[in-house]
């Protein structure tokens, strides 16, 4: 099986704090990590390779420091890594990102399956996967929590609000995976060392992708950020209910009743 996985390096937004004095985001000390659901995608690719044989290529669009997450993927068992990095890619929205990734994947040759994490911790759009599938004219299935490869086909469990759907399509196809799909392995020290010594991360810029500069980055993005501000936490005036539990319970029931909640 030839599998391509798309990866993103993101700040761990779960660890971001807001400075209560200034109201600004505290970004110092927030680690850059592999987007968690992309890590699930890498793990799933490695499991599929262990089961069906083949090879795995990871592709990421980002600044040069994103090489770290590609090394992490190589350590987990990926075979080749490509970092798409160029000043021209800066300011890309999901449309420009999916276009850039798509151009690179086209250059990689044939593949059976593309795996993406469903959503990134920083952008939170869940759009790149589907937009990439459209660009490459592939069938897409999103929110996948279980994958089974058949004879030229893939069968998945797609998570929906009230349960799941059992869906099948022929390969090649693109799947976006959710964290429920697996628990990613932790690479051993040997594997990490090997990923730096033996394996290669190739870096491609706009020139290698062969397209006019205006199609990339901010210029190639139909959306623009007009304004961004730190989310405010609106404090509420708290009415404290005191007394023994039974009394407090009675007061709450009365309040729920008055507000037509029960």
């Amino acid at each position: 099986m030839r599998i391509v996985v798309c990866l993103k390096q993101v700040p761990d937004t779960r660890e971001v704090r807001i400075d209560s004095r200034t109201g600004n985001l505290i970004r110092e000390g927030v680690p850059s990590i592999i987007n968690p659901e992309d890590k699930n995608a890498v793990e799933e690719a490695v499991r599929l390779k262990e089961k069906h044989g083949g090879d795995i290529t990871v592709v990421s669009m980002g600044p040069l420091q994103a090489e770290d997450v590609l090394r992490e993927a190589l350590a987990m068992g990926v075979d080749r890594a490509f970092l798409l990095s160029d000043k021209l890619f800066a300011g890309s929205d999901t449309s420009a990102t999916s276009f850039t990734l798509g151009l690179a994947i086209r250059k990689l040759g044939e593949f059976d399956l593309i795996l993406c994490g469903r959503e990134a911790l920083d952008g939170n759009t869940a759009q790149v996967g589907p937009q990439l599938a459209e660009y490459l004219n592939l069938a897409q299935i999103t929110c996948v929590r279980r994958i089974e490869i058949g004879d030229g086909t893939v069968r998945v469990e797609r998570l929906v609000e009230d349960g799941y759907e059992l869906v099948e399509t022929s390969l090649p196809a693109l799947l976006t995976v959710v964290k429920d799909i697996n628990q990613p392995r932790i690479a051993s020290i040997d594997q990490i060392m090997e990923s730096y010594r033996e394996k290669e991360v190739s870096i491609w810029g706009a020139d290698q992708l062969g397209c006019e500069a205006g199609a990339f980055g901010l210029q190639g993005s139909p959306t623009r950020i007009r304004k961004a501000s730190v989310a405010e936490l609106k404090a509420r005036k708290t009415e404290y209910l005191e007394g023994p539990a039974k009394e407090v319970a009675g007061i709450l029931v009365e309040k729920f009743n008055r507000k037509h909640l029960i």
Partner: protein
Amino acid sequence: MFAEQKEGRLRRVALELLGKGRELADILGAELTAFLLGYRVEGLGRELISYGADRVLLADDEILEYYRTDTYAGVITGQISRLKPEIFLAGATCVGMDLAPRIARRLDTGLTADCTDLGIDGDARLLLQTRPAFGGNIIATIVTPGHRPQMATVRPRVMKSLPADTGRKGDIVRVPVSPVAGDMRVKILDIVKEARKGSNLEEADIIVTGGRGVGAPEHFKLLEELAAVLGAGLGASRDVVDAGWISSVHQVGQTGKTVRPKLYIACGISGAVQHLAGMRDSEIIVAINSDPGAPIFQVADYGVVGDLHRVVPALTGALINYKSSGP
């Protein structure tokens, strides 16, 4: 807008979108059209009009009975290319988040996900698309200046639907459905409902959530009983999910679900920013925590500084008495 229906019933977010769409259309002096796709769903057309649509485009065919990306995207992009709307909206549901990016890419236009507010910059007829980003730590306003339609998916339970006006006039227009062979490449083999107790949090009007203060996985039973008598969903903080006390489908917070119920009862929840991100827009928040300094009290309407192992069963008992005493 995309009027999402499931099993022959309109999803609530479709009505919310009509409410917001009506407001935007009136500002722009434009027509509001609802795209209704499905099989044997004509009856929903009148409902869409009563909730604010001027026109309903109905694509009714057996191949549209269950949502699939290619069949739905094919019909919708065809109609958008024909009608050339300025704005196209969908709910940020499982379907919407699968469908909208496909459409936007095919039409080479901009799409903003999970908007919590929409407005109009009148002079430029620009849609102002406001949404949380960076894990909910930032609120951003996005515009699509040079491409059309301006597309956005909208977070459910944030916009308000209008009251139904059955006297409202509107047209229902049937459009042809002519799939190409490639549209049928995905097959749905089965649809399985997993009615996990109290896990459909996005739809719940009341949610009871437990955090580390619950103490042990067995003690979640106290919250389950409270949730049962309230007909509420059962939520959990990331800590207790990571500790394996309860399944991740119950997780509320930045990396879990975002909920907006009428009543949110937080038991033994400290109120970390990441948890608040998932529930801070609840209408009424009740916090029960033995630590008076817990940050959760900053966003609570009602605070109980006490032991949840006493307060929660007391509340359950009081509610049972209340319900049995009848109206």
